[in-house]
């Protein structure tokens, strides 16, 4: 949509909080822990389907005519608001749900112990990525969406319901963020600062990959993940800064990211 969306961090946090509290409540009522994975997904779906359309229809749709940078600031304002909404609903104390994580146990790779839950994380991530690629490339909605992103005016002239496409995209994007949050929730303690941290990280990821490129985002995520782990392993002091160093290096040599889309010069 050509929107750099800061609220994404909020949806990540919302997903995590919703997942933690709903799963926790259901487990307390005696739900079998094996169902909790479905509940994680369900709670992500729930928050994003309620909150995302509200934001898109209520505020963002009036703003699309504005400058890219101004839209970024608008989402930043919304992010500030959502941060406090989250604090109002869930308070500032951390939430834990360890059941989905602990349930599966772990296995050994050589000398390392590795939790099975992380395999699920990887699976969910691959499924989401593949699903998104399939949706954009092979379904009618996805193709229409690509057309809308490419040229809004022509799409409108062709009879595409652009408003509805925007709504779908924003909701779907937010859903992905919420799923990310929901499935990360069992591995961390869910605290208010969650959104702030993840958003700069994901900016680094998409910028490394190239804005608006799906394979780029995937590659960027893998790079950030690997570099970060390597840094933690070899040089723990450099953990945070190494990610942004990679981002700065990539931008220095490929100014628009690794998988950038060529853009015509306007004279």
């Amino acid at each position: 949509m050509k929107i750099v969306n800061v609220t994404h961090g909020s949806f990540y946090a919302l997903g995590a909080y919703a997942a933690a509290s709903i799963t926790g409540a259901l487990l307390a009522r005696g739900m079998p822990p094996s169902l909790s994975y479905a509940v994680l997904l369900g709670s992500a779906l729930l928050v994003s389907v309620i909150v995302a359309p509200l934001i898109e229809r209520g505020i963002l749709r009036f703003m699309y005519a504005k400058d890219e940078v101004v839209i970024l600031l608008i989402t930043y304002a919304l992010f500030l608001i959502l941060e406090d909404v989250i604090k109002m609903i869930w308070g500032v104390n951390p939430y834990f749900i360890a059941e989905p994580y602990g349930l599966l146990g772990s296995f050994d790779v050589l000398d390392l112990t590795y939790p099975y839950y992380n395999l699920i994380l990887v699976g969910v991530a691959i499924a989401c990525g593949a699903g998104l690629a399939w949706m954009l490339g092979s379904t009618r909605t996805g193709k229409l969406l690509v057309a809308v992103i490419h040229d809004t005016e022509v799409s409108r002239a062709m009879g595409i319901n652009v408003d509805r496409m925007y709504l779908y995209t924003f909701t779907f994007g937010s859903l992905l963020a919420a799923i990310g949050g929901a499935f990360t929730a069992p591995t961390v303690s869910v605290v208010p600062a969650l959104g702030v941290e993840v958003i700069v990280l994901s900016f680094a990821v998409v910028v490394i990959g190239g804005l608006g490129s799906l394979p780029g985002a995937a590659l960027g995520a893998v790079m950030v993940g690997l570099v970060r782990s390597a840094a933690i392993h070899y040089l723990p002091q450099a953990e945070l800064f190494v990610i942004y160093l990679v981002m700065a290096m990539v931008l220095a040599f490929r100014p628009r990211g690794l998988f950038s889309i060529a853009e015509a010069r306007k004279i």
Partner: protein
Amino acid sequence: MSRDRTPRTLALILLALLVSGQFLPQWTLFLVTVALAKGLVVLGLMILLRCGLVSFGQALYYCIGAYAAGMLGRLFGASDVFTLMLAGMAAAGLVGFVLGFLLARYRSIFFGLLSLAVSMILYGLLVKTEALGSTDGFHVLPSTLFGLRPADAWVRYTVLAVALLVAFIAALLVHRYLGTPLGRLASAIKDNEIRVEYMGASARHAIHVKYVIAAALAGLGGALAATTVGHIDPEMAYWTTSGEFIFITILAGTGNVIAPFLGALVFGVIQTVAFGISPNTWQMVLGGSLLVVIVFLPNGLWSLFRGRKAA
């Protein structure tokens, strides 16, 4: 073409604040001084915004300025407020000059994100540097003025007076700069860079110069903030700090050099009031007011004054 009234207005504001500062309660002095420090940073951002560039990493220079001032006091025992500010300004300007070679090649969202990345690199470094207090930062020694230490009751006022003076000079210089051909190139760069090149001017050079000016101003603001608050920590380089500066820039608008200081003051008041009324929802109030400004005053608070004059 009306006469340029900005210098006179600036001088009047300076005088009014210098006089009224003696009677205002201490906490307002603090508020105004911090607002002046932030206003200096925003003044730099305003120069960049006039070319359509939004830096999401101005906190980098704010932080460099503050740490430079703090380190100077720590290592060499320097405490003269002007020395500290000059040091902060010089350090930030130097870093800005070097980074400018890279950053002046970028536009729009990429400029913003790359500057964000650079400021986060500094944040990451500072957080892990035990010698500089890691996440806690360290205290800055109370500063002196030409070797004199003002009496306790007058500390706040003295700092305010110094800040006012510095802000006044900076605003005046920037105002003059914006009137020069290089300064006026800004809106041309924003509109169409290629035409600027056809005209024979170098957009990259112009942006580089503006970037260094903005960096130096941010360093100055950072040093001022360090001496005022008396404590510095890596949070000053975090992206939320940059977000705050952008917030003020949008709030203020780019109409005039007075706007950034006005914006910073309004921001400080909103923040203080909102924090006082409801400590848990002050961010919401800030976000809400940002939205209101973007929707209803796309040119910032300054357009309020402009609108009245035109009518």
